């Protein structure tokens, strides 16, 4: 993974809050490869493939069956006839190549942490909510709250996406091949969002970090979202990222619009809430 120095990060609008010593979160180091997977994660073989027909199974049964197959070593699973059922493919926390031949309903593929997932159809509301790592590629359209609160990984929709895309995004990358609805990037905190089509109104409202790139028209910007010039680094990153998923900006990445936080809405100081209470 390419390392960003502070200058590059600043140019891209990513100004990281310094919370050193205040968090209990355990950060993995890429050098400690053992820490990149959970100790209990099943050993799967990507050459071992199977299919699972979801037609007469409940979402719960399908999700349990996926886990059972992973424990049996299957690293490549195709789900047939998902039928737009809700909550399919959720909570997969280790490596897996998963393919849905069809569409998912609400809350599809939430809480992913590592698998590579492809959905050949459409997804409903709140797809990939809280995704942490891995990739999820949707071949058709997506509903609202796409990628709500994602923290990592690549979330790609090749069609149009609904409102509030990437609401509360905390990291990772969201790519929309078509347009997005109102309030996309609302309260974005980190990460990057790429919209190749038009963006609905109030784009990036109240975002306090992160970067949004738009290829089409922007209906209007939300509170404290501002336009910034694209840098060479932005263009390079966009080109590489879009190439990965066979996508391209209609007018070239160099003509995309870059939106970042104006940093005028911040109301944070250096104190944690618990510390504030002590003072008050």
């Amino acid at each position: 993974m390419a390392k960003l120095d502070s200058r590059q990060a600043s140019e891209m609008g990513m100004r990281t809050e310094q919370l050193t010593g205040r968090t209990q979160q355990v950060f993995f180091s890429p050098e400690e490869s053992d820490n990149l997977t959970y100790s209990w994660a099943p050993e799967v073989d990507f050459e071992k493939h199977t299919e699972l027909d979801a037609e007469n199974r409940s979402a719960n049964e399908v999700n349990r069956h996926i886990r059972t197959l992973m424990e049996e070593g299957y690293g490549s699973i195709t789900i047939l006839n998902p039928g737009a059922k809700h909550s399919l493919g959720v909570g997969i926390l280790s490596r897996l190549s998963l393919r849905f031949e069809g569409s998912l309903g609400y809350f599809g593929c939430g809480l992913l942490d590592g698998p590579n997932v492809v959905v050949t159809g459409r997804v409903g509301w709140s797809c990939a909510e809280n995704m942490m790592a891995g990739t999820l590629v949707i071949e058709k359209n997506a509903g609202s709250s796409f990628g709500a609160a994602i923290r990592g990984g690549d979330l790609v929709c090749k069609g149009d996406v609904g409102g509030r895309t990437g609401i509360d995004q905390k990291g990772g990358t969201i790519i929309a091949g078509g347009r997005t609805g109102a309030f996309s990037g609302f309260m974005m905190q980190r990460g990057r969002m790429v919209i190749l089509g038009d963006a609905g109104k109030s784009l990036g409202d109240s975002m306090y970090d992160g970067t949004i790139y738009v290829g089409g028209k922007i209906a209007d910007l939300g509170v404290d979202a501002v336009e910034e010039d694209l840098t060479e680094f932005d263009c390079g990153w966009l080109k590489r990222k879009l190439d990965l998923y066979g996508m391209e900006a209609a007018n070239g990445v160099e003509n995309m619009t870059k939106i970042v936080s104006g940093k005028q809405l911040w109301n944070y100081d250096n104190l944690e809430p618990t510390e504030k209470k002590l003072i008050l």
Partner: protein
Amino acid sequence: MCGIAGLIHKGKSADIGGQLTSMLQSLKHRGPDSTGFALYGNPTENEYVIRFKLAEQADLRTGFRIHDEVKERQAEVDRRLEEMGARVTEKDIATEYARRYRFTFDGDMKRLADYIEDVEDVEILSIGHGLELIKDLGDANTVSGQYDLGGFEGTHAIGHTRMATESDVDIRSAHPYWAYPFNDIALVHNGQLTNYWGFRREMERRGHRFVSDCDSELIAVYIADRMDQGDDLEAAMERSIGELDGVFTYVVATEDKLGMAKDVMAAKPMVIYESDEFVALASEEVAIRSVFPHEIDTYDPYEGEVRVWQS
């Protein structure tokens, strides 16, 4: 949270009763308290269909005289229809407390409706050339079975599964709402209006009456009122986006059209499937899949979007 659904066949009739039952049953988890159907059968030019109830379902479990009272109320409705010059050509007893009449009438429909509703505990659910509005307690299969809706032939329909949050679990509070007293206009809605009371008072000053305190009924009457003032359906719906305040997605139907509108925040869900012959829309795609189990292309309408389809 409630579930709403609609379907329209372009240029032909089909089993809309059975199709809407499947769609609404798939949305049962969004609202198990009551289910309602507004079905648009093949209209006859000179005849109207009236659906009305003589009591609430729960009333039948109270008191010794209720069964006699229901019969007395029906007799009074019959007498008033005759007095107003309406000629009843067909009578169906849908349930002990609900009736469906077909009748001819060439007088003032509002006067007729007001006179019938003046009978204590009688409530008109709908009047129209094609519209038949059925709503009752229970899920879609229960209501559809009770009123024998499977096999109902028509061009378009809208329906609702209700999770009661701010009013009682009864037929009066169930959706859809007929836009009293305008023929053939019905509406289902998922959301909440925040300027309800001010708007309602304004409509009441204009002479409209409401059977419930439900904001969905207000939207139905608002749309009908705008159309009465000369707007077409699409123009009335476009205007509603700016004038109604709150979060809402609603589906409205007239004698030959079906429309949907979403507020400017787009906070309430809607999924649409459209082909050359058919349009289906619902709060969740699983409802559409109950009619089209194979892979289909669907999409979510965007904020402030209004769509209208012709049967």
